[in-house]
């Protein structure tokens, strides 16, 4: 019996390390441009390289494993390459593509690797429906899910990335569309650096340190993304640093430490977004005069806006803490909404003040501010605050158990009270 057990264990152990007979590199080498190289199911170890326009097509169970610290698959100096239906594993990078014109990566699984996909000096790249799961550990020891360097005409869509340093890292790229991706539990959801003509649309960023980090970038559109639960130390929904011409539209920005932070940025339009339950909804520091937040909904945020003395414009937004009235009945409040608060300004100047956020003393101070600052004319003042807004979803179903527990507690404590008096 014991022998059989050992034999089974031996078999199981060996099955992890046995590699299929099919020679992947040989198949790539003999393929002619335009051919489809079909890789049967099995585990193949090697330092595979593609230098001609072919399609690498796996099937369920096709796995490529890198050797030592080498990438599992390299694609170099070629055009029109497609890789699909493959699982990659190894220590360092899964796929590295250099100087490729026309690359499609789809249906690829990458797990426990340092970096998922690394693209450099390439154009016309389409990465979709890939799944990258990094290893456990600190972000500093991990690589990025998908990283693009010095490239142009890139589309990254429908990917799921988790537990990496930056979900999607983009550096020195011209014309890129990042859409319908989901990045969770990473450092930054998507990180743009020195990029121009970029779009991030319909993405979901949840539980990262920061959802969207945009630095030294020009001409970017961020639309219809959901950015939630970035409330760690130094966490932001979006952070824009030295960004020119950004349009942030129709996003849902919910439950972040700071919803949107703008630093040293110019011509930023923040339009028709939903800011819900953030500690600070918008923060601006050295933002240009034409930076404007308009037609947004601010609901349940502790601080709506804070800035340095330069401020930014607030126009026609809805604020749930606006207390003005609309005698003209035009949907616009008759008195301006003043978002500026002493505490908010102090927090920008001296971060240690953050300790007091929403403390009893600050709440009282903010209430007084709202009376005093009604004379404020310049910074963080919305002269046309909107009054009507779509309602938060109703919760009107009776919770019978909770109601009965509540009634029991109330009645029994009142009975005890009465008994205490009469005894």
């Amino acid at each position, binding site marked *: 019996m014991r022998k059989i057990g050992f034999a089974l264990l031996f078999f199981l152990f060996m099955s992890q390390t046995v590699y299929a007979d099919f020679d992947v590199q040989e198949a790539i080498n003999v393929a002619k441009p335009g051919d489809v190289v079909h890789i049967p199911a099995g585990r193949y170890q090697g330092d595979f390289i593609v230098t001609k326009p072919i399609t690498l097509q796996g099937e369920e169970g096709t796995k490529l494993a890198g050797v030592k610290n080498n990438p599992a698959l390299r694609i170099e100096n070629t055009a029109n390459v497609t890789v699909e239906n493959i699982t990659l594993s190894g220590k360092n990078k899964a796929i590295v593509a250099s100087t490729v014109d026309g690359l499609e990566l789809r249906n690829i699984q990458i797990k426990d690797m340092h970096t998922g996909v690394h693209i450099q000096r390439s154009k016309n790249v389409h990465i979709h429906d890939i799944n990258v799961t990094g290893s456990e550990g600190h972000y500093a020891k991990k690589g990025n899910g998908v990283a693009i360097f010095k490239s142009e005409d890139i589309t990254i869509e429908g990917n799921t990335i988790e537990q990496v340093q930056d979900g999607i890292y983009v550096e020195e790229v011209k014309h890129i569309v990042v859409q319908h991706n989901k990045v969770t539990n990473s450092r930054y959801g998507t990180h743009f650096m020195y990029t121009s003509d970029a779009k991030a649309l319909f993405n979901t960023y949840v539980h990262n340190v920061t959802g969207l980090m945009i630095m030294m970038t020009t001409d970017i559109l961020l639309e219809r993304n959901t950015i939630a639960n970035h409330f760690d130390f130094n966490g932001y929904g979006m952070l824009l640093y030295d960004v020119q011409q950004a349009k942030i539209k129709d996003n849902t920005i919910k439950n972040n430490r700071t919803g949107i932070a703008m630093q040293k940025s110019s011509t930023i339009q923040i339009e028709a977004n939903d800011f819900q339950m953030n500690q600070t909804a918008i923060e601006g520091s050295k933002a240009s005069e034409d930076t404007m937040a308009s037609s947004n909904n601010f609901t349940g945020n502790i601080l709506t806006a804070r800035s340095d003395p330069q401020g930014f414009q607030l126009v026609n937004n809805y604020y749930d803490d606006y207390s003005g009235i609309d005698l003209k009945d035009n949907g616009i409040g008759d008195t301006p909404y003043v978002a500026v608060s002493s505490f908010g300004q102090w927090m920008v100047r001296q971060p240690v003040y953050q300790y007091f*956020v929403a403390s009893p003393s600050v709440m009282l101070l903010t209430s007084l501010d709202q009376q005093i600052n009604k004379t404020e004319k310049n910074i963080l003042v919305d002269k046309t605050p909107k009054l009507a807004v779509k309602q938060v979803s109703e919760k009107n179903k*009776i919770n019978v158990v909770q109601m009965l527990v509540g*009634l029991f507690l109330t009645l029994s404590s009142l009975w005890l009270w009465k008994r*205490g008096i009469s005894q």
Partner: protein
Amino acid sequence: MYSMLIKLELKQMLRSRWMQLVGVLFTFVFTAIIVIQQMALPDVEGFTRQTASFLNVLLFLLPLFILTIGSMSVAGDVESGWFSLLKTYPMTRKQYIAGKYIASVIAFLLVVVVAFGVILALGGFLGGVRLPFIFIILTLLCILIFVSLAIAVGAFAKTRLFALSLSLVFWSIFLLLISYALMAIGTVVAGHVLQKLTIIAIHINPVEWLRFGYFIFTDQASVLGPAFYKITQFYSSPLGYAVYVAVTLLWIICPLAYARLLLTSFSERS
């Protein structure tokens, strides 16, 4: 004799019109804010305006009610001669203070349970409210600490009017003045100095101590900002929890010991 005293004190507390009004007021304000906010705002995890309101209502109202009622109860005993009469019974100062403490804690617990009961009942009718466990623990700690402080204030004041004014002074110092003083100091000193002063204030101000505890035990210390990373990391460790419990116990025991000292010296003088 000892249990008789507790029963008597509890009876007096519960009979007090002031206490009954406080019960109604606390229940009304607490329920209104929590239920309205729960209905108006979306349900999300983390530190939100809703949880901030809950925490602030708790920290604003409960210490105020406990300090005033608790201190006036002790000062009233001294002022009316009831305390001198009690001395003729076979009962020590320690037993008197312990009896007073237990009776006050039970009375305020009843007030809070009524309020929580109404919140749950009304909230349940309107679709359900969240009453996090940590709030219940925090409320209990608030009662335990502030009843102890109230007894010390009452023993020090010895007259009801002085006890009332002294309670208001302490309440405003704990709730507002220490924070405002720190914020004012922060405008003229460096950030790291303000950070250290704030850490000291957390330990010497029971309101800040409870607020800090809320962030630690709900795993939301990041709300306090990166400047407090080290201290929040420490208090989030098992040793930190032990220190938190120890400091909380000190906040309960020290005022009671001080009250005993005051009443003993008063007895000896009179």
